[in-house]
């Protein structure tokens, strides 16, 4: 399949459906179809990225969803109220997205900071473009293959 050339691997370790619209969480076929990939050995772990806590909780209803990616940082702690304890109890892996709140938690931005025209922190600062619920969104509601990045290494020590 196409990813072999891209990722140089026989199987993908983790594939997360990226922020599907809320309706998708009520369509079992969205998640069922991916189990075939797991059974075929092409996909080791399945998961989904979500925008809302409600979506995260709903996603765990699907047995194939082994991991959930959700916004969680010092400024955005709502996930910890209900979802995180549930995920832990059900042994669903959680990837914390926007851990630095789109740069606000790096200590390097100020009220005078500006962003390039093609930076989402510029054109979508108030959420008009996508995801109205946050000032610095980085996750448009669309379906996409995940991209590996350095962040994958920043995990809990074993």
């Amino acid at each position, binding site marked *: 399949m196409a990813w072999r050339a891209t990722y140089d691997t026989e199987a993908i370790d983790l594939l997360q459906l990226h922020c599907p619209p809320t309706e998708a969480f009520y369509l079992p076929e969205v998640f069922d179809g991916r189990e075939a990939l797991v059974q075929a050995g092409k996909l080791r772990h399945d998961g989904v990225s979500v925008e809302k806590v409600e979506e995260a909780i709903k996603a765990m209803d699907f047995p194939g969803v082994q991991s959930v990616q959700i916004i969680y940082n010092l400024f955005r702690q709502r996930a910890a109220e209900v979802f995180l304890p549930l*995920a832990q109890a059900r042994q669903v892996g*959680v990837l914390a997205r926007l851990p630095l709140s789109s740069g606000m938690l*790096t200590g390097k931005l100020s009220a005078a900071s500006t962003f390039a025209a093609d930076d989402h922190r510029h054109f979508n600062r108030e959420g008009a473009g996508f995801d109205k619920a*946050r000032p610095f969104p980085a996750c448009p509601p669309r379906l996409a293959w995940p991209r590996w990045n350095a*962040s994958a290494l920043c995990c*809990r020590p074993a």
Partner: protein
Amino acid sequence: MSMAQLALRWILMNPAITCTIPGGKRAEQVIDNVAAADLPELPAALMAALEQVYASGVKASRGLYRNRPSQTRRETGGHCQNRCTSDLTPPSPQESAQTYVALLFGEAQLQQALGNLPPFDEAEIARRSQRAFELTCRLYGRPAGCLPSIKNH
């Protein structure tokens, strides 16, 4: 410990979290981020101070969002079945930036807590930095030592 490392290590303090996924534009940012995973647990006093910042600064203002009638609510004639996250409308860019910055830099309590962190010994920092460096090279499929080692982390 950098501010970013503090934010990342704080996330890993929650036992439900498997992993966090910061992005980095430059190699040193990636290295700094990766090294956060090796930092010791944050002291209880610091965790309490950070909780206070969130409770009094962020949560009290509903995550910096103001209450407004949502589009969803308007569309449904004033009804909202879930918790109506779309009710929360972002503040203006300037407002949010100023509030964030005030939270980060204006909280004497936070700064004091940061000052109470135990100092790391230099050799330990160098070791962790080197490990982060090696991981970064591996990540990008480059030979070990592909980046110059860190002199002043």
